[in-house]
């Protein structure tokens, strides 16, 4: 009955290639989980709609291209802005009312939102998905010797690193970030200093959503732009954030890269389990160090 567990060992150059591919995926996970970490870290909301917002970003890029003729490069800026505004609307309409409640209600509410967004898009667009091509400037690739690296994948790593660094820097090293962190710990006091806390909270949620949408635009040329793309990936992103430490930006980044690598290796040695290995790690981390590698006990 247990003969489904079997391992395969590949030759060394192939292993380097797999590690690089795993790293690329990890960069993508890190960028995708940033928004979630920001929202939970600063607002204490478990944003289950993150996957749906990622999907909105991809669809927005597709829509801009097919209806308004706006290509990939402007879409990288426009789509996150548009979806960010939607995020702000969500915050104003729904989330505002449940801050005083248990974060698990936030999870249930955003889960409901995700169902609605996904259902509406599925009704409208079916599930096969829409084509979105890699922009001409990024097509092709170069032969690194041990593998052929598509240019677009290299681009993904560069953008992910840049976005991760920028976000971390903003939250941890700038004044704005300091205000945000202070507002989370003691909103009344910070508001007494004259800082508009509700507006900051709204903008923070909007930024987290915009980050998800940015990841969506990045994904559109390589993954299928379909209404199901969010729900397929949301669980993985959750695991990344939990392992890194819910609320730690650095934790999300590091665990994103690490998990990408681990998943990549699993795809080589035991491919059928590559979806599940993340949960095994999540369970282990939760049992040993529940706050995650970088998180603080909240």
């Amino acid at each position, binding site marked *: 009955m247990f003969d489904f567990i079997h391992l395969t060992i590949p030759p060394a150059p192939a292993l380097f290639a797999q590690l690089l591919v795993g790293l690329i*995926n990890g960069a993508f996970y890190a960028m995708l989980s940033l928004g979630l970490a920001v929202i939970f870290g600063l607002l204490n909301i478990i944003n289950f709609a993150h996957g749906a917002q990622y999907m909105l970003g991809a669809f927005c890029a597709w829509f801009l291209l097919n209806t308004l003729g706006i290509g990939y490069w402007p879409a990288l800026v426009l789509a996150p802005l548009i979806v960010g505004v939607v995020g702000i609307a969500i915050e104003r309409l729904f989330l505002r009312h449940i801050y005083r409640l248990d974060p698990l209600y936030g999870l249930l509410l955003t889960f409901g939102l995700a169902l609605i967004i996904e259902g509406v898009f599925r009704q409208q667009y079916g599930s096969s998905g829409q084509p979105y091509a890699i922009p001409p400037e990024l097509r092709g690739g170069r032969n690194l010797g041990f593998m052929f690296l598509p240019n677009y994948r290299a681009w993904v790593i560069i953008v992910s690193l840049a976005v991760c660094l920028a976000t971390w820097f903003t939250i941890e090293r700038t004044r704005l970030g300091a205000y945000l962190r202070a507002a989370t710990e003691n909103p009344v006091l910070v508001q007494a200093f004259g800082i508009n806390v509700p507006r900051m909270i709204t903008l923070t949620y909007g930024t987290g959503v915009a980050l998800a949408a940015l990841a969506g635009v990045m994904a559109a040329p*390589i993954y299928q732009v379909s209404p199901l793309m969010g729900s397929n990936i949301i669980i993985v992103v959750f695991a990344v954030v939990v392992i890194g430490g819910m609320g730690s930006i650095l934790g999300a980044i590091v665990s994103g890269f690490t998990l990408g690598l681990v998943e990549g290796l699993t795809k080589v040695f035991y491919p059928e389990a*590559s979806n599940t290995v993340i949960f095994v790690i999540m369970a282990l981390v939760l049992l040993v160090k529940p706050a995650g590698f970088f998180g603080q006990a909240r």
Partner: protein
Amino acid sequence: MRIAILTGVAAILALAAPASAEISGDAVKLGVLNDMSSLYADISGAGSVEAARMAIADFGGTVNGKKIELISADHQNKPDVGSAIANQWFDNDGVDAIVDVPTSSVALAVQQIARTKGKVFLISGAASSDLTGKACSPTSVHWTYDTVALANGTGSAVVKAGGDTWFFLTADYAFGHALERDTSKVVEASGGKVVGKVRAPLNTADFSSFLLQAQASKAKIIGLANAGGDTINSIKQAGEFGIVEGGQNLAGLLVFITDIHSLGLQAAHGLQLTEAFYWDQNDQTRAWSKRCLDKMKREPSMVQAGVYGAVTHYLNAIKATGSDDGPTVVKQMKVMPVNDFMTKNGKIREDGRLVRDMYLFEVKAPSESKGAWDYYKQIAVIPGEEAFKLPGPNECPLVKG
């Protein structure tokens, strides 16, 4: 008191049992059960319901003086939802035949229920060859295509054209395994060799790692034993990693025209696949497809065309026998040859399999296409007997001994 109630119920049930040479419930009721909202909504979904409606209208709306009714429901690709609906339809709603049912796991469940209740099951969407193999039923007809035909079509044609080493990229679920197994047998029987395989979890988004393994195997052909979103993603990413430029070719084992529509010709051109129908094959198919295009705003898939053919043949069989009793009608369907816009001189085998010609297509390059849905060029016709030839003895108990 309870005895009285139970006796009454028993009496009613006894009275409701249909007599044989009669149409039960004073109408012939068809139920189109498929995926309306998810993975297979585009190849079946509302389009299949429309196809069934067209078939009923073209037949005249009544058979032997009784009205023909149509209902539909979404099984969400889940066997329990499908079983619940099938049970309710057969027990409560007077449905005589269930039509379509993509997703083999649901089809197997519904076939079991239909067999137990003696009701007809016209399969168009599902692919598993087990439906006419070890799970076969005397009240089912497997109409459009199956995994054997896909394997014989794409598999042997590709090997004959020179693609004799294969690497399989398989979706890790029962259907993916079955597709891989059937195609491997055909490849090896045609003189080819399977040099490796990798199983990716269902709904994998990123195939780069698996494609790298396929590249490393140096196989001439990478067989995609998956469906839906997985096929689309693997083809798209294969383009990214320069698989085709590197000298390897992709063989899509289960690809529909809607998948190509979703991929775009840029990503998909050169792909070889087997289908049972294409809207642009001849005047008859074009005429019928135009009616679908007008109603549904998309060209029909082979599954939807198959629904039309199956419903028409079923209604003709009822007309001939004067009864809608499951086993009787299906027996008649096996006697009558099938001739419609999609199938010429088709014959239904004893195990319920419709033996019909299949077609090997290649996806056009963007420059060769005149517009939306103009995606295929026909490379070869695979005659029915060859397409549906089983690799081993027929496992269906209706045929053995």
